[in-house]
């Protein structure tokens, strides 16, 4: 067991990370030890990243302990780079975190500075000058490389940079050379932000944190108006909206609402959020209050203006789409579905249930197979997602329908039967052996109509290893009206 992390007091006793626990205990017998919890560490880093969203939409994780913030074009909103750096460090320190931060024009350079000389702000072009005096360990390369460099007598980054790149590459590998170049400001490694950049963001900051529901809902509707105005200038409508609630104590709650067609009206957006907030399982907890509420449109579409007044049908479709959006906002988009026909014979896959918000237009134009004229229904109205096993004591002939069967503890005598309708499984899509099904339409003595099937063919599929006929499994798959 090794020491994973330690606090200031332990460090003053002479302990260091990576030390075996037994040695540490020998140095400092009263040491208190806890298990490292990397999952919790990752969670807290994620929470801090959520909090950092208030400064810039582009926040990237640099596990295990780092965050990148792309503050291009954001710093002036907070009184300049120095003020922003002070604000972030101050707020995080106040919350009890140990912070070191730096600003530079490349991500690797900034990371190197946080390890060597935190708090610096390096202008574009001055990276090499700032990084050169730092020790090689600040680069954050593998321990083997750092030790190797130190053994070679290269103590600072400047020493390493002074050598020819080919020498360094030959000894320590190409990755290290690239990292060194990035730290010196030659090229940059891209960061991968946690969330894609929203198309539009509007937000409202409060000098005094707000807690009351009415203020929050008024703020949301104001923001909706601002967002719609911003989108309207470019003829866009929002398909996905996200409301972010930033609490004073650092907790951030994001609420996402999807729409089926581009939302261009503030009232619609406002109403969707009201439905959503109303239906939350864990209601919005303002705690000590929200100091920032943000509304962003993360997916937008160009709105096609339609002539509404003359075509009543279009009007009706809009109203239906609105209804679907409202229901989906309340109970979730996966729960409001339309049905699309699929080109397959397998009964349970013949219909695809798709989210109504995104497939309403497709479903209204879907081409369903025409029914056979003057035939009774050949497919059941109620279909079990998982066919239910039934007990069949014997069938009249090996390939015939059962004489009677037991389903859900009730015995049904078969009065009429038609079949078999043989449906072979799609062997080209499946792994392993799948059995052919023989379907029967059955009517029992009470007039109930069932759709049952036998799994497997007698003689060919249903045989034991010795070549004898094996008993068949029967299932109820659906119920006819």
């Amino acid at each position, binding site marked *: 067991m090794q020491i994973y992390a330690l606090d200031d007091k332990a460090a003053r006793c002479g302990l260091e990370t990576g030390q075996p626990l037994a040695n540490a205990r020998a140095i400092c017998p009263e040491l208190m030890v806890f298990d490292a919890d990397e999952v919790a560490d990752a969670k807290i880093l994620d929470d801090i990243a959520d909090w950092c969203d208030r400064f810039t939409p582009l926040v990237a994780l640099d596990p295990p302990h780092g965050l990148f913030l792309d503050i291009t074009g954001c710093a002036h909103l907070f009184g300049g780079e120095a003020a922003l750096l002070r604000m972030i460090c101050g707020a995080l320190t106040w919350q009890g975190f140990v912070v070191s931060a730096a600003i530079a024009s490349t991500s690797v350079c900034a990371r190197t500075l946080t390890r060597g000389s935190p708090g610096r702000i390096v202008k574009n072009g001055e990276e090499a000058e700032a990084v050169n005096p730092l020790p090689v360990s600040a680069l954050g390369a593998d321990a083997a490389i750092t030790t190797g460099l130190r053994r070679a007598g290269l103590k600072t980054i400047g020493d390493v940079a002074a050598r020819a790149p080919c020498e360094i590459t030959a000894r320590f590998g190409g990755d290290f050379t690239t990292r060194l170049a990035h730290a010196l400001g030659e090229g940059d490694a891209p960061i991968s932000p946690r969330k894609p950049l929203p198309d539009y963001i509007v937000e409202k900051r409060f000098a005094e944190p707000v807690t009351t529901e009415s203020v929050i809902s008024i703020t949301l509707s104001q923001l909706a108006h601002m967002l719609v105005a911003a989108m309207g200038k470019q003829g866009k409508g929002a398909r996905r909206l996200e409301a972010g609630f930033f609490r004073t104590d650092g907790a951030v709650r994001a609420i996402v609402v999807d729409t089926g067609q581009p939302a261009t009206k503030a009232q619609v957006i406002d109403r969707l959020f009201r439905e959503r907030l109303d239906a939350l399982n864990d209601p919005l907890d303002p705690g000590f209050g929200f100091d920032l509420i943000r509304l962003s449109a993360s997916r937008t579409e160009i709105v096609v203006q339609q002539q509404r007044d003359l075509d009543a049908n279009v009007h009706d479709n809009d109203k239906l789409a609105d*209804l679907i959006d409202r229901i989906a906002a309340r109970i979730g988009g996966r729960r*409001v579905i339309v*049905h699309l026909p699929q080109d397959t014979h397998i009964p349970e896959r013949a219909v695809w249930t798709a989210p109504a918000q995104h497939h309403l237009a497709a479903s209204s*134009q879907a081409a*369903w197979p025409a029914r056979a004229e003057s035939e*009774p*229904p050949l497919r059941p109205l*109620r279909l079990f997602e998982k066919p239910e096993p039934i007990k069949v004591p014997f069938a009249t002939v090996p390939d015939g329908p059962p004489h009677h069967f037991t389903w859900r503890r009730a015995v049904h005598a078969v009065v*009429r039967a038609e079949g078999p309708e043989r449906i072979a499984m799609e062997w080209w899509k499946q792994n392993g052996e799948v059995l052919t099904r023989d379907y029967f339409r059955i009517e029992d003595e009470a007039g109930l*109509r069932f759709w049952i099937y036998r799994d497997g063919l007698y003689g060919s599929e249903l045989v034991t290893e010795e070549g004898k006929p094996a008993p068949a499994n029967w299932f109820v798959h659906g119920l006819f009206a």
Partner: protein
Amino acid sequence: MMSARMSTLASLRGDIERLEAHGDGYALNKVALGHAGADAALRGGLAAATVHEVFSAGHQSAAATGFIAGLAGRLAPRRPLVWVRQDFSEIELGALSMSGWAELGLDPRCVVSVRAADVDTALRTAADALACDAVGVVVLELWGEVRQLDLTASRKLTLAAQSSGVTGLLLRVAAQPSPSTAESRWIVRAAHSPPAAPLTLAAPLMPAAPGSAWGAPVFDAELVRNRHGPLGRWIMEWKCDECFFAEPAAYPQPVAAAPAHRPNQAFQRRAG
């Protein structure tokens, strides 16, 4: 001042007119089912813009579903239909299959399904859908006894239906009828197919003669509540090709012992 009073008076008169219109069964927009006996009892057909209830026992749910599908097909064949159901009822009764829906001669493109997690959500969603006049029919499927669907909830649904012109159909499976504001209430069971050679051990699989194909949806529908007319009990067959309810041609003696009043052309008046 004068004009304000006049407008108040006018709006009150309008209110009274509206109330009277709804109180009077003949003013309702009726849709004929196609079955002569039932249409006569319903005075012309099923009333649109109201709520109707269909009850069935648990194992008869498919028949009730088919009956509701038929009613929906009669009421608004081209307009969107919202079918609200609970997750549990899908497991218990099977999911509504659009292949089967199309086999009944109905249009699966019109159907929007909503899977609600619980009864409260289902009721609220149904009320929302009933208030949206772009919808033709809203079906609310509930399994078992539902405490939340009391007289108040039922009244809410009816009011929403009246103001928007949307018809609400309640499918109540494995439940006992309770007081409600529904315009009509049905109890539906499956009925036998019209006669063909029944299955015997000697001749197990007689191919059905053309035209006599058994398996058409036949219902034993009992009208147990009708606010504006008599009650009754009829055997109805849903004609998949023409999309209406009809009297099955030459319905035979049922195999099981029939209740005394089946098949029945005369109205059976009942108290309540």
